[in-house]
């Protein structure tokens, strides 16, 4: 048992020394002598240039993702606004659903027919195996149908959705959404293409 504990202690990146060593006691003012290992002290006190959002902050408290266990610091101006308009905004989780993922793939659309699409799938688990599958277009959300084009990327996840006290077996397909090209970007690309074309034409004339 002792050997096992020792082995774990050597391997564990969370070395016990940082908490059970003299640096910890010194920090608590329970022992007056200097810490025996200065390098431990460096790890015990955060560097002075640590960014301010490393500290607990009120936004984490609002997030359903977080553990909602801290007393958070709320900036005064924001506190005033939220207390005035949304008194309970900080205390409750905002995203209520949970999804227990079973498997996830990234897909690339290869072909589209009237009622279906064929896609190459890459398993996003550690196996990273590949395969092809055909999906009925009925499975795609109507808002995503304009995105279904050869080469489009989507994510397909299967699992259980816990919603409103029910566990539902779910398949979620979401297409990648990137910003639309703006007119000035299209114009700039066109100018670049024309310039390159002129260069090639010039080469041919020479």
């Amino acid at each position, binding site marked *: 048992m002792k050997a096992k504990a020792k082995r*774990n202690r050597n*391997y*564990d*990146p*969370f070395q*016990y020394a*940082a*908490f*059970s060593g003299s640096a*910890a*006691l010194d920090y*608590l003012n*329970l022992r007056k002598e200097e810490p025996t290992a200065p390098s431990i002290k460096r*790890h015990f006190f*955060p560097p002075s240039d*640590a*960014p*301010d*959002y*490393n500290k607990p902050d009120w*936004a984490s408290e*609002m*997030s*359903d*993702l*977080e*553990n*909602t*266990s*801290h007393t958070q610091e709320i*900036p005064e*101006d*924001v506190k005033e*606004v*939220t207390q005035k*308009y*949304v008194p309970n*905004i900080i205390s409750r989780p*905002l*995203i209520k*659903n*949970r*999804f*227990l*993922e079973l498997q*996830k793939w*990234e897909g690339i659309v290869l072909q589209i027919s009237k009622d279906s699409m064929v896609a190459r799938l890459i398993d996003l688990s550690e196996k990273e195996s590949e395969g092809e599958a055909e999906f009925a277009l009925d499975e795609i*959300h109507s*808002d*995503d149908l304009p995105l279904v084009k050869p080469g489009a990327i989507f*994510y397909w*996840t299967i*699992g259980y959705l816990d919603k409103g006290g029910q566990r539902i077996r779910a398949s*979620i397909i*979401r297409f*990648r*959404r*990137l*910003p*639309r090209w703006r007119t000035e970007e299209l114009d700039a690309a066109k100018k670049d293409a024309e310039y390159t074309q002129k260069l090639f034409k010039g080469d041919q004339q020479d």
Partner: protein
Amino acid sequence: MVKKPEIEGMNIVFRGDFNPKIFQPAWFAAQGLIRNEEADEATVEIIHPTIVVFTLDWLQIQIEPNRFYAGTNQSPYIEILKDLILGTFRILNHTPIKMMGINYNSHFPMDSEDAWHDVGHRVAPKDMWNKILKKPGLRSLTMQGERPDDHKGHIAVRIEPSNRVRHGIFININDHYELKDPESVLGCEAIIDMLESEWKTSVTRSQRIAITILEQA
């Protein structure tokens, strides 16, 4: 054998200068970054010059003048979250952003109450605390380390008992990036390029850190 997390999500936090009122569901839909139906059904908590907060079924957005936060607690949407942020700041590319946190959150169920206590004892041994407190227990522990790459920043790991999963462990990993020369920042291209190039590495590394902690504890 570590069980899969019951809740797993990511959030992305930027530090910079933002105009909160831009970031409304209708704006995201108009840019084609979320579905129209999602924008129509969004729950808007507050829209005010100093703060905007709204949620979709899978997304929470919160913007203050110096902070942008977007997160999901549903693993199918982790990649969608990243695409949403990339799309948003490819459009708003003049927004000055100096720091970024790619944060991973997970709630792992433990096999039993004993196994749950065991994790607490392993990551924070009570030898010292037993002399100081009566029945000490781990409430929260944060450990910070240097980055394993050339970027400026750090990686911090926080462990707590889960408040969402019975006998569960909550693990938060803050993968923090900073620009090397923030004073010269004019827009957000550098940070957004960093997000795009580092995303996969960051997610994989955070998931491995969480699993390693529970395997060793």
